[in-house]
């Protein structure tokens, strides 16, 4: 890890003016920044520690929804009784992510900004080419070991998977990312790779995530997160789905359904085609199965990740049936 200068921000304004300087990174839990600094992916000249800022770790839930400070730790949000009651999929996505130690360190803001686990991205010494690290340099994953790579939202430049669980749940329930006064819907916050895979989100230099809000909804109250992976715990998703359902008064016709996918796309993925196909329908296994196939409409595989096109609809189907039973 290359050395850097260290500044402990005393206020949000101080953090923001420091963050606007070149080669400067904000440090919260450190679980991504320091990991990638050791890999040689990050080489900041200045690191601005924001963990001592006061009042940015509040968790509050009221009739409007959830208000989560960017510095709240994953473990605290996962265990918060009001989050558990109003947004169970959010809690489940959090406690099924990473390990207990990392969840005690990592903040909610940092969690959203975690980088892909693409092995080529993470290893600049062996693989200098990477369109995400060095725009225009090429991609080793297209023809390489790409079992974990994305099948949705890919481009000719990049097929790296967005690895987070929390964001899959947040995108399902229309969360909003607050950058101080500026508010960005989470689906617009994350960018598709296109020809610029190095641009992953809508944040500009000199901005930081201060709060994440999630509007309250009946679908969010009756939600679940299903994560399928290579080992039972402490592993990224091969495919995951956050699903919430609200029924009509007859308790069987779907009024509202929200579906977010993880582990299969280049950004947190909203499965709107599946939602559209099921709104107004009754939850019944064959209907759910055929609608779930729409989750991978337009999917493109690159060899090793072909199984995800089969796996993702099954995960969606199971999550819908589980969520339907909860609603």
């Amino acid at each position: 890890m290359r050395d850097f200068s260290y500044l402990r921000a005393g206020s949000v304004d101080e953090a923001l003016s420091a963050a606007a300087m070149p080669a400067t990174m904000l440090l919260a839990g450190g679980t991504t920044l320091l990991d990638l600094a050791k890999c040689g992916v990050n080489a900041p000249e200045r690191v601005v520690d924001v963990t001592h800022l006061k009042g940015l770790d509040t968790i509050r839930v009221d009739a409007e929804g959830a208000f989560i400070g960017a510095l709240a730790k994953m473990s605290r949000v996962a265990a918060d009784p009001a989050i558990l009651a109003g947004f169970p999929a959010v809690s489940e996505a959090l406690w099924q992510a990473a390990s207990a130690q990392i969840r005690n360190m990592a903040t909610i803001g940092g969690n959203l900004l975690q980088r892909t686990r693409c092995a080529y991205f993470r290893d600049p010494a062996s693989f200098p080419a990477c369109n995400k690290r060095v725009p225009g340099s090429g991609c080793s994953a297209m023809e390489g070991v790409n079992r974990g790579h994305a099948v949705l939202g890919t481009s000719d430049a990049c097929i790296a998977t967005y690895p987070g669980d929390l964001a899959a749940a947040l995108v399902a329930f229309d969360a909003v990312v607050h950058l101080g006064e500026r508010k960005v819907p989470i689906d617009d916050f994350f960018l598709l790779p296109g020809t610029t895979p190095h641009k992953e989100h809508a944040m500009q230099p000199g901005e930081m995530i201060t709060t994440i809000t999630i509007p309250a909804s009946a679908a969010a109250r009756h939600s679940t997160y299903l994560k399928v992976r290579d080992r039972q715990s402490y592993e990224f998703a091969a495919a995951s789905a956050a699903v919430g359902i609200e029924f009509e008064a007859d308790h069987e016709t779907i009024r509202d359904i929200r579906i977010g996918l993880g582990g299969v796309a280049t950004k947190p993925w909203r499965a709107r085609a599946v939602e559209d196909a099921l709104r107004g329908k009754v939850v019944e296994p064959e209907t759910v199965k055929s609608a779930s196939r729409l989750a991978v409409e337009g999917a493109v595989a690159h060899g090793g990740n072909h199984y995800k096109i089969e796996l993702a609809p099954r995960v969606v189907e199971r999550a819908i049936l589980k969520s339907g039973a909860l609603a």
Partner: protein
Amino acid sequence: MSNQTTINLEINGQAHTLAVEPRVTLLDALRDHLELTGTKKGCDQGQCGACTVHVDGERVLSCLTLAVQVEGRAVTTIEGLSDPGAELHPVQSAFLEHDAFQCGYCTPGQIMSAVSCIREGHAGSDDEIREYMSGNLCRCGAYPHIVEAVREAAKVMS
């Protein structure tokens, strides 16, 4: 070595002053600067849990924590879990009793993690212990005995 900064750390109840570069992790500060080598360096990238310590009573990875970040916070390592000459911590005793290791390299991290797992109330069943101890890898595969040790220590600590 032009970029050194002087920091004050509280490790196992004792105050320490040391000069380190900002990039020095808590793990390296413990092992290389303070000769507290009980905390182990396994992967050094947050994947194995061997470096687990407590900061303000919560388990964290010292390899992904900068030493400068824990100024003003209380750090506990395996050396501080029980007082010298006093009885072992119940989790330490349970690991001995249940033979919960082979080579022992991951053990300090396993024990620090297990103490938290029990305190957090996540040792209610073997499945729950496995889930909440998943951040600590054991290449020898002593997992069945580790689960036994955590389960039995939880009874003693309750």
